């Protein structure tokens, strides 16, 4: 039988994100990015991580700049509304603060790699990336001939992350979670992972979560820890909870232009605030209020009657 898994963010990261782990985050693209979890990884100085994700809007750049990352597997690291990621550039071009290995993917191939792991398939063939330089820079891709049609294909090997971290709207203490709105590759990333850390805006009684089992993202046997962390995706948006704090992304882009500027940013927003509540205090209640939805758009209840 399953046991309650509710714990603190610091405990969840300390137990389930060891040095050298492969960690999948930012799976809903620009939404529901688990910034609270990422900042705790930085505070605990977890090193040698492999980060896995489709696009990462600012979070991976922060982890790379903080020296936590040895390898990136995915499609894009930068700042969607402001431009490129300065820390990603420094690490890849100059080894500052440390060199980073990159396994290039497209959004489709990273989705296929995770999907393959969910199916227990060793790889999935695709036509994506035929004729591209990905086949040179990422030796994990294999060019092959489809035995049925004799057409060229690219084989995308399965990727099973050690841990996938999800920010969701609500979960019970056992890790049954409801995520809606933009989901990106969250379902595949969670189901492919050896373990999942669920970070929830709200903890709900089990009966109310199980009232909509179709909305549960991943079986709870995958979930290692549940963390209650309201506003845990800020400054990225979470449907029905808060919008995107665009200015924060723009200010980070300017602040992180130099290693010194990034160090000051890190002190101000991560190391110096102690925990996520400290981050939210620094952001201020007026900002939180401004980002709340101006109107609610409720779905219709479902009848699961038998």
């Amino acid at each position, binding site marked *: 039988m399953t046991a309650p898994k509710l714990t603190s963010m610091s405990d969840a990261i300390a137990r389930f994100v060891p040095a050298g782990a492969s960690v999948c985050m930012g799976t809903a*693209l620009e*939404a529901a990015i688990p910034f609270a979890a990422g900042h705790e990884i930085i505070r605990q100085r977890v090193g040698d991580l492999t980060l896995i994700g489709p696009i990462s809007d600012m979070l991976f750049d922060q982890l790379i700049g903080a020296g936590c990352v040895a390898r990136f597997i995915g*499609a894009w690291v930068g700042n969607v509304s402001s431009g490129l990621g300065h820390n990603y550039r420094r690490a890849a071009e100059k080894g500052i603060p440390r060199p980073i290995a990159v396994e*290039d993917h497209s*959004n489709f191939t990273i989705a296929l790699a995770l999907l393959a792991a969910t199916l227990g398939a060793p790889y999935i063939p695709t036509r994506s990336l035929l004729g591209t330089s990905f086949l040179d820079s990422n030796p994990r891709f294999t060019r092959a001939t489809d035995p049925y049609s004799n057409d060229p294909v690219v084989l995308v090997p399965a990727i099973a992350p050690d841990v996938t971290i999800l920010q969701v709207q609500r979960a019970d203490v056992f890790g049954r979670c409801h995520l809606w709105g933009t989901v990106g590759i969250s379902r595949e990333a969670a189901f492919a992972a050896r373990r999942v850390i669920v970070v929830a805006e709200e903890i709900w009684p089990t009966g109310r979560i199980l009232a909509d089992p179709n909305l549960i993202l991943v079986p709870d046997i995958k979930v290692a820890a549940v963390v209650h962390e309201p506003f845990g995706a800020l400054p990225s948006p979470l449907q029905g909870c808060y919008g995107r704090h665009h200015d924060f992304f723009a200010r980070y882009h300017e602040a992180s232009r130099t290693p010194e500027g990034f160090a000051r940013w890190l002190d101000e927003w991560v190391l110096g605030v102690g925990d996520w509540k400290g981050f939210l205090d620094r952001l201020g209640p007026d900002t939180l209020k401004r980002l709340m939805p101006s109107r609610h758009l409720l779905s219709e209840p479902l009848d699961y009657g038998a």
Partner: protein
Amino acid sequence: MARSTMDYTARELMVIAAAREIHDGDVVFVGMRLPLLAFSLAKRTHAPTALGLFENGIVRETPSPEMLFTMSDPPNLAGATWSTGTANMMGMLAQGLVDVGFIGGAEVDRFGNLNTSYVGDWRAPTVKLPGSGGAPDIACYAKRFVIVMPQERHRFVERVSYVTSVGHGDGGDWRTRNGLPGGGPVALITTLGVFRFDAMAGEACLASYHSGQSVDVVRAQTGWHLRVAPDVAETPTPSAHELAIVRECDPQGFWSG
């Protein structure tokens, strides 16, 4: 910011030119940044029945009710006709259901191959660019795609050093020979003009230059031997109606200013 209908920015013109590439009834893979506005403009002018796909998993047949900084901003969900995952959006591409997609680039060559990954040798890059996102997938599968990027000579190179998203490869029937199902790039919209890709050779050919520019200005900012269409002319001026809609969709000029 005061912007009269007499003047417009290069980015406003790029948005309007991009919108004109969307045909009514098209299934559109919208992409990020300027194409977010182009889709909204096309929907509200000449392409009311176009369908928009966003790679985060959203499908919609109306433009977002609010200006989008990213496709995952919560207003983009309101009124969506499907909200699913990225794999299904990529499945729409891979099944051949997408008519047109939009791609940005850091470097482009005469055959419309794009580099958004590494400047210089990928083993020791001089510049590490953010990467691909879903652009290689759009480039592989969409029936046609449109490139939208600023034009500077160092970005318009004879041959890209790294192919992130394939255009017409070496030209001619390269795509067919290499097993790529989509049709490749049809237009390259820049800050200076609009190029079209020759259907046989697959090479970019200057079709129009924007108001205030010229063939010579475009040539000076093109790093390959520029081919010019015999009927090259000035890019059609944006209408007051188009400009008004762009400004209504992006009142602060965040993308188009």
